[in-house]
């Protein structure tokens, strides 16, 4: 075995250790197990919510209770979520920190183990790290605030900038959109609020790290990003979670608003531990000439259901979803895209690549909707699936509705596996089977990985190597 392999394994080991890392819990506020109106009241009291927010949450709770589980189309695994055994709010009750020095030591330690800010702080424009439900650390570079960019927790956004927040909050994803968006609307806490004023092009990606650190505790962050006319923003969201014994629920709602000619790029690398239910609603609203791109990579979790969407509301708006999913043993990556064309000459593009390893299952679900009386809309959808083992599973369920004769849509999907010839070729050149497989898989997703910022693509490559290691016997 070459030295290089050892290094790869070492890296992998370190990576795994980080994933298993956990600090003692220290929560000042805890809403207890189960969900009722009392839970919602408790959250409102702790967070000192305004009356309209309290009413909003309560209305959402009713919708959540009324809505059935979507098991008519989705996996039955959803039935294994026991809503009574989940804690809906935890907080250390401390104010978000202004400077790095004020962040509690154990929180800092978690971030150090994840290798986040020390190395990257200088590089990144601002860091918003979520430790359980409240932001433990928040820092936006002066330059950004000078330009009028607001980058705060959504709680602060709600309090300090209600004039912008309230206008768009719940407008892109209404409470009743689905059962889990309703749940989020009832108990949301944490998440980011970003406002970029007209014409401001944020050079560096803004970044937030999320971390779940309390057993049986679901995170319900709520993110709202508004990018005003002609402005541009890239936002990155990365997740790792320590491994727990019982399943955890994560149900976020992310709303993006791109005003005329604005551009938003939202990048996610999801690597929750393999007991997390990750049921996320993400949608963007693109006004005239605006562009919204979701770049999404799902590697972790037990079950992820996530279909980022773009509503193209203004003429010539563009929507794009680039998605990589890797489903390993026992995992189900149920991802996809939703493209709603609501104006002339809007274009959307979906490229999805999935890899199923061991007993892993990856699913693509897509919806493209081009209503009547629009002209010149275009959609392109490509989904490619790679199956690694004979027990691996992949599904594709797109739905395309087109009305009228002035549009063009195309959908293509393919399923393939790593050919024995390829593996043989690489083994001839001294690679072992695992390395050959990793290389093949990395080649399969390579054109999409390049869409991620540099440090993410390096991390992604490493994660894929790690996931592929035990896939060949």
């Amino acid at each position, binding site marked *: 075995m070459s030295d290089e392999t050892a290094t790869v394994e070492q890296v992998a080991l370190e990576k795994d250790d980080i994933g298993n890392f956990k600090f003692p819990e220290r929560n000042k506020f805890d809403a207890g197990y189960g969900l009722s109106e009392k839970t919602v009241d408790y959250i409102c009291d702790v967070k000192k919510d305004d009356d309209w927010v309290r009413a909003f949450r309560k209305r959402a709770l009713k919708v959540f209770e009324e809505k059935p589980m979507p098991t008519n189309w989705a996996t039955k695994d959803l039935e294994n979520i026991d809503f009574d055994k989940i804690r809906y709010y935890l907080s250390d009750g401390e104010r978000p920190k202004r400077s790095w020095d004020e962040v509690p030591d154990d929180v800092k330690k978690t971030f150090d183990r994840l290798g986040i800010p020390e190395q990257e702080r200088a590089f990144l424009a601002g860091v918003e790290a979520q430790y359980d439900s409240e932001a433990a650390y928040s820092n936006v570079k002066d330059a950004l605030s000078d330009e009028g960019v607001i980058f705060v927790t959504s709680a602060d956004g709600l309090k300090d900038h209600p004039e912008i927040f309230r206008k768009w909050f719940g407008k892109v994803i209404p409470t009743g959109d689905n059962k889990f968006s309703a749940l989020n609307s009832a108990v949301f806490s944490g998440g980011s609020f970003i406002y970029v004023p007209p014409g401001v092009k944020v050079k560096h990606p803004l970044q937030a790290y999320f971390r779940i650190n309390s057993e049986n505790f679901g995170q319900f962050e709520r993110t709202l990003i508004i990018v005003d006319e002609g402005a541009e923003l890239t936002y990155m969201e990365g997740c790792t979670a320590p491994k727990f014994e019982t399943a955890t629920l994560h149900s976020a709602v992310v709303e993006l608003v791109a005003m005329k000619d604005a551009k938003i790029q939202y990048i996610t690398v999801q690597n929750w531990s393999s007991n997390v239910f990750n049921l996320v609603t993400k949608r963007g609203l693109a006004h005239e000439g605006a562009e919204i791109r979701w770049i999404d990579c799902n590697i972790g979790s037990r079950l992820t259901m996530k279909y980022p969407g773009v509503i193209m509301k203004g003429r010539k708006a563009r929507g794009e979803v680039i998605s990589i999913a890797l489903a390993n043993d026992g995992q189900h990556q149920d991802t996809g895209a939703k493209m709603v064309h609501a104006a002339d000459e809007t274009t959307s593009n979906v490229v999805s690549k999935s890899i199923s390893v061991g007993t892993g299952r990856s699913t693509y679900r897509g919806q493209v909707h081009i209503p009547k009386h629009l002209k010149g809309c275009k959609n392109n959808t490509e989904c490619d699936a790679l199956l690694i083992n004979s027990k691996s599973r992949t599904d*594709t369920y797109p739905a395309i*509705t*087109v009305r009228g004769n002035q549009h063009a849509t195309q959908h293509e999907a*393919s399923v393939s596996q790593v050919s024995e010839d390829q593996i043989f070729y690489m083994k001839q050149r001294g690679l072992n089977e695992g390395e050959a497989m990793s290389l093949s898989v990395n080649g399969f997703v390579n054109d999409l990985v390049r869409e991620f910022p540099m440090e993410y693509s390096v991390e992604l490559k490493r994660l894929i190597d790690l996931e592929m290691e035990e896939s060949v016997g």
Partner: protein
Amino acid sequence: MSLAAPPNPEVTSITLPPVPNRKEESWRFADLSQLKSLEDLQPASAVELDSAGLSTIGVEEASARFVFANSKLISQTGDALPDGVIVLSLADAREKHKALVDEHFMAQPFELGSAGYAELHREHTSEGVVIYVPSGVVIEKPIEVTHWLGGDKTVIFPHTLVVAEANAQVSVIDQFVSADETSASLSIGVCDLIAKDGANITYANIQRWNSATRGIQIASTSAGKDANVKSFTLNLGGTWIRNEATSHLNGAGGNSDMLSVNVASGSQQFDQRTLQLHHAPNTTSDLLYKNALYDTSKTVFAGLIVVDDGAHGTDAYQTCRNLFLSDDAEANSMPGLEINADQVKCSHGSTSGQIEDDELFYFLARGIKPTTARQLITIGFTAEVVDKIGNAALQDFALARIEEKFANLPV
């Protein structure tokens, strides 16, 4: 009572099963009002059709021809067929070959949403044919079955059962025609094609009901080892047509081609659901459905390829293409894949588009009028599917019916 018992002749009214819910995945995008509006239905056999007035157009040469009018067999002609071949009306087959009918009659599961309508068919069907071809026997000329339907609120239950033993070969054409232009009738049909090892079945369903009639057609195909089945569905008439087609690939080397052409005009709706089930390794299936959409018509295509655990070496393809000839038409496509095996080649594609200006220009430059050009392009679009049937008699017949419809479309 055997499962395939004939219906009770005393029945005077037909009660449909509860209307499905659009939340059921197999009824997504479906227009359920089409089913809700159906009531006070009676068996078509209660209404007498003037058989003299029915002029059946058929294939040029057939080895057997059957004509049913409102469920009644009114004509049966044909050549002498090789020993052991059975070509009988369902009623006769029930009497003379009970074991055969009992073994195969509606033996396939109904998984695409219309199980309730299939059960109703099971209870009421008395019309249609049973075809059995023994091992190694080849029937060159097609067997043709025509179902006439007339009278308001009448229902027929056309049944087709084709069993081809090892290395046998047969082609069958079912055609569905209305006796008049106005009566709103209903047809609930079931067609089972069973190809044993090495057998070869070619089947065409030519549907040209009047513009008030609704239809549900549930088809299934089973292909054994090295068997080859081609099944073609042409939808020209009807106000609302639901097709459910399932292919079971049961033996290594088995192949199923699923083909369909739908020319939708006026407010016609064609709702098609398909399943390609690969149960055995090294099987192939190829689906090509094409829709030409005029006026305010609407189509739904929902296809699913399922490759079972262990069905390695599967090649499965699925393509749905929509050609829009109107700004008010609507096409819904849901091409799906579920893969549980290894060494699989699968792909699906769905496109929607319209006639491109440069295509038109090519014709105009040669002095061909735009209306004719559009028609020719559209016929060409559908002909690609028809050509895949691989049986000249069936192809000619299908193309002639397609051209007939285009000739009558306002341009």
